[in-house]
């Protein structure tokens, strides 16, 4: 039995249960997100009859009798709630639709048999309203994905949303900014600590290692709670700052950006330290001594010898920290203020509070794509490291 490049039947049978399980409970959910983000059948569901005949219309001439007949049939057949959703949606696209439709619905209910729509309201002569329905009939839309990026489809193509409606781009920038800062802090604290960890021996290394591993194994929730206690008004941190700075007033820390950054750095630091440490420990100890014996000052030796060698560890640690930080949800929810919430909390809000699954899926899809791209980079890098 030597290593092989193809799966035998026996091996495949062993892997199959997992493949099926993940296909059902991991791939299908992600596919559902992708389809929910681009599907839009509110209008198509409400106008099945019209959907069948409107394609034969040229879009400029007055509506054909077949279209009018189909619309009347749809008004009579479609359930009230489904029609209400569709009309609300059409009204956001062309104002006046709701009033026109309400009037038409009443008239159609009163009449029996065929109805002449322009005689109820002459606006039905206008192709604009028919075109509104037609443009909303296709079951797929880029509306939510564009909305996730604060874009919309206007008359001149894709355009930016008005500033008072655009929040997502700001939240994406905030998420990236906070993640980048956390990554930077982790690298700045983690590199010297990993170097220390690599040169110490005996019980000192045991203690330092325990200080890295114990927090890493501890629940993020528990650490959030600890930071809640430390950062609160008149808490431990406020006391330390007061003693160090001599300031009389308390600096607010809880529910601020500073607090979120401190706690996120604390959560992610062990991953950065271990990532750098794993590279440093593989480096021959004599290297730094050789650099010193050849006359390099400590700083020069660090810059020209140690830093380049440690770089793969720093980069893979940074990718891991950045990728994980992008998805943070409970820590900013517990320790941050309203302006410190990351993209995940918007996804959760749209889904849980507003039941707006389309927008939640679209935002989630953008987050997923970014995260998976970084994960792919990380995997390539750690593959290359492992092969060395």
């Amino acid at each position, binding site marked *: *039995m030597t*290593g*092989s*490049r*193809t*799966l035998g039947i*026996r*091996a*495949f049978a062993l*892997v199959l*249960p*997992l493949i099926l399980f*993940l296909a059902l409970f*991991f791939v299908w*959910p*992600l*596919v*559902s*997100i992708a389809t929910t983000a681009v599907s839009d059948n509110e209008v198509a569901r409400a106008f099945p009859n019209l959907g069948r005949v409107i394609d034969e219309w040229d879009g400029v001439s007055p509506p054909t009798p077949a279209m009018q007949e189909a619309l009347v049939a749809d008004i009579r057949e479609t359930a009230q709630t489904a029609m209400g959703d569709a009309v609300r949606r059409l009204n956001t696209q062309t104002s006046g639709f709701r009033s026109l439709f309400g009037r038409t619905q009443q008239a159609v209910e009163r009449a029996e048999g065929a109805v002449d729509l322009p005689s109820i309201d002459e606006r039905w002569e206008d192709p604009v309203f028919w075109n509104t329905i037609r443009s909303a009939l296709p079951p797929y839309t880029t509306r939510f994905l564009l909305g996730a990026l604060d874009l919309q489809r206007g008359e001149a193509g894709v355009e930016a949303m008005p500033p008072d409606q655009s929040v997502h781009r700001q939240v994406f920038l905030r998420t990236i900014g906070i993640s980048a800062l956390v990554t930077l802090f982790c690298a700045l604290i983690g590199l010297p*600590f990993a170097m*220390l960890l690599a040169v110490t021996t005996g019980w000192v290394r045991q*203690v*330092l290692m325990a*200080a890295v591993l*114990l*927090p890493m*194994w*501890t*629940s993020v929730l*528990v*650490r959030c*709670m*600890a*930071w*809640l*206690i*430390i950062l*609160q008004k008149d808490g431990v941190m406020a006391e330390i700052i007061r003693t160090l700075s001599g300031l009389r007033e308390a600096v607010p820390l809880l529910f601020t950006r500073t607090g979120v950054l401190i706690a996120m750095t*604390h959560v992610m*630091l062990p991953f950065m330290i271990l990532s750098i440490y794993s590279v440093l420990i593989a480096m021959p100890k004599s290297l730094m001594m050789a650099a010193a014996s050849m006359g390099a000052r400590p700083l020069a030796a660090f810059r020209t010898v140690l830093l380049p060698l440690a770089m793969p560890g720093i980069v893979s640690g940074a990718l891991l920290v950045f990728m994980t930080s992008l*998805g943070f*949800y*409970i820590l900013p*929810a517990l320790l941050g203020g309203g302006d410190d919430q990351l993209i*995940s*909390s918007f*996804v*959760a809000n749209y*889904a*849980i509070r507003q039941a707006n*699954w389309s927008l*939640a*899926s679209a935002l*989630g*899809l953008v*987050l*997923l794509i970014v*995260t*998976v791209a970084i*994960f792919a980079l990380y995997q390539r890098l750690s593959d290359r490291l492992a092969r060395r």
Partner: protein
Amino acid sequence: MGVIKFAWGLVCVIFLMGPLLVILPIAFNAGSFMVLPIEGWSLRWFTVLFTDPAWRLSIWNSLIVGVASSALATVLGTLAALGLRGHFGLPMTLTRIAFLLPMATPAVVLGVGMQLVYARIGLSSSYAGVIVGHAVLSIPLTILSVAAALASVDRTAERAAASLGAAPPKVLWLVTLPMALPGIVTGFVFAFANSLDEVVLTIFLAGPNQRTLAQQMFLQLRDNLSPAIAAAAFSFIIATVCVGVTGLWLRHRNAARSR
């Protein structure tokens, strides 16, 4: 130079460990608030934790979901690790990466997707749904740990058993699995710890009856800060230390045995 190094190490250790140490006194606080210094020592919040119906239900739920999801993840992960064992090349790398992807997917995204699927297949707000969700997140951990254990299993022992007439299933059952057992147990323990810890996916999948301990802590932290949360957190830390020590001991024993 030595002083600076020492000071830097000390500051980092305090930063890393301090938050864990802060929890300990608060859990034994006699007063009703989560503030330091505490008013006096007592076990009253542990009594609340283990007698209050909401906390008790959440503890039971965590144990049920934890054991069931870890068992599921361990079985699936062990089978897959056995199947993938000894295979190399690009297809294998891709397969492995595909199995590790759940680890990289943001929990909120997976939560939204699973809720969409559960609504369709009728698993919303059910134990089965929560268990399956936690298992998806734990599978990478079990695969990694079993694959690492299998990599160190000596193939000559298996070949010896086969040459003495043992059928492949017998070799697997009597030779391979016992030798990989520490890795399988480690995988189970990590999966259990992971499930115990999981909040975000649970928020999406669990109904009020499936509320887990971690979720209960999250809700309490958001709404009212009772030291009962600290008592729960203290129990978490003790459990963590036990799990960590068990893991290290298993690895140590494994290393000592293969030496």
